């Protein structure tokens, strides 16, 4: 993997799935990782796993949907490490349902966590990244942002919004040597997809040219690359990690 030695990273939604594997991969590459999520128990276990592997991690209990918690969480990280070099906006929830019957609460909760949450976190890291004239922001979108998906109007809208947010901020802060990119995972084995019936999973696999579900590790590897010095000339990009499921 690429070297992230001496870098400080924050990963939201780090308690499980892609966020957890991303935190582990960033730590393996040498970064000090602040892992953020709502579940303290899961974060403690992750911090212990990273430490056991020789890395350094710090748990931050934070709900990205809550602006005050986001502010307090990033303040903790800055007080402890003095800087943030990498932000991975991964926190996301689902509240699936047909659009015509979707409850306003379900629409708003998903938009609030998956899109507004990313924006709130970006606002917290920009001042420190602007000062150091360096930074990597990686926002996790989804294949459905490009392909659409029935029953997920809220999730798809939020994940498509992530792509727009990525491109707008990439242009806005490019002059400060801060890159902003999105990763769009396809059908990845995570707690979020574990709940799907086996029949649905098999049907989905038939739509993946590489013939298998992705792993959280596949996505984490793409994130580590975008966080590295080797990706310094890439910004505003959406990197698909989907086994060919959707070719954009």
């Amino acid at each position, binding site marked *: 993997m690429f070297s992230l030695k001496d870098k400080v990273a924050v990963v939201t939604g780090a308690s499980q799935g892609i966020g957890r594997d991303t935190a582990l991969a960033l730590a393996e590459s040498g970064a000090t990782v602040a892992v953020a999520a709502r579940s303290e128990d899961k974060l403690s276990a992750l911090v212990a796993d990273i430490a056991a592997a020789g890395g350094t991690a710090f748990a931050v209990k934070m709900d990205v949907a809550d602006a005050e918690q986001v502010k307090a969480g990033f303040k903790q990280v800055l007080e402890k490490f003095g800087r943030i070099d990498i932000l991975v906006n991964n926190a996301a929830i689902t509240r699936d349902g047909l659009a015509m019957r979707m409850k306003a609460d379900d629409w708003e909760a998903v938009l609030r966590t998956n899109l507004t949450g990313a924006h709130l976190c970006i606002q917290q890291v920009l001042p420190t990244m602007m000062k150091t004239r360096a930074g990597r922001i990686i926002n996790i979108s989804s294949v459905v942002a490009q392909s659409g998906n029935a029953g997920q109007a809220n999730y798809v809208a939020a994940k498509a919004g992530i792509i727009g947010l990525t491109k707008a901020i990439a242009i*806005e802060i490019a002059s400060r040597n801060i890159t902003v990119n999105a990763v769009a995972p396809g059908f990845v084995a995570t707690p979020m997809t574990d709940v799907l019936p086996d029949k649905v999973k098999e049907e989905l696999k038939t739509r993946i040219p590489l013939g298998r579900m992705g792993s959280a590790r596949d996505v984490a590897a793409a994130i580590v690359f975008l966080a590295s010095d080797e990706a310094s000339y890439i910004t505003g990009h959406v990197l698909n990690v989907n086994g060919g499921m959707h070719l954009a």
Partner: protein
Amino acid sequence: MVATRRFRKLEEIPEWEAVRQTLMEKLSLDELQIRQIEAQIESKPFDSLDFVELVMSLEQAFGISIPL
């Protein structure tokens, strides 16, 4: 305010007046001192991100909050 927009004069930025007032009130700066600061900032072209950074620096350096 478009991030990539470049300025030559602080008066082109609507928010500057609020910053100016805050500096005068909270740091007890007079017109002459403010003009000296303005001249220094305007000595080279700057963009709206520079302006945001300037405000952040002033807030940090003097422990004040500048409402924009």
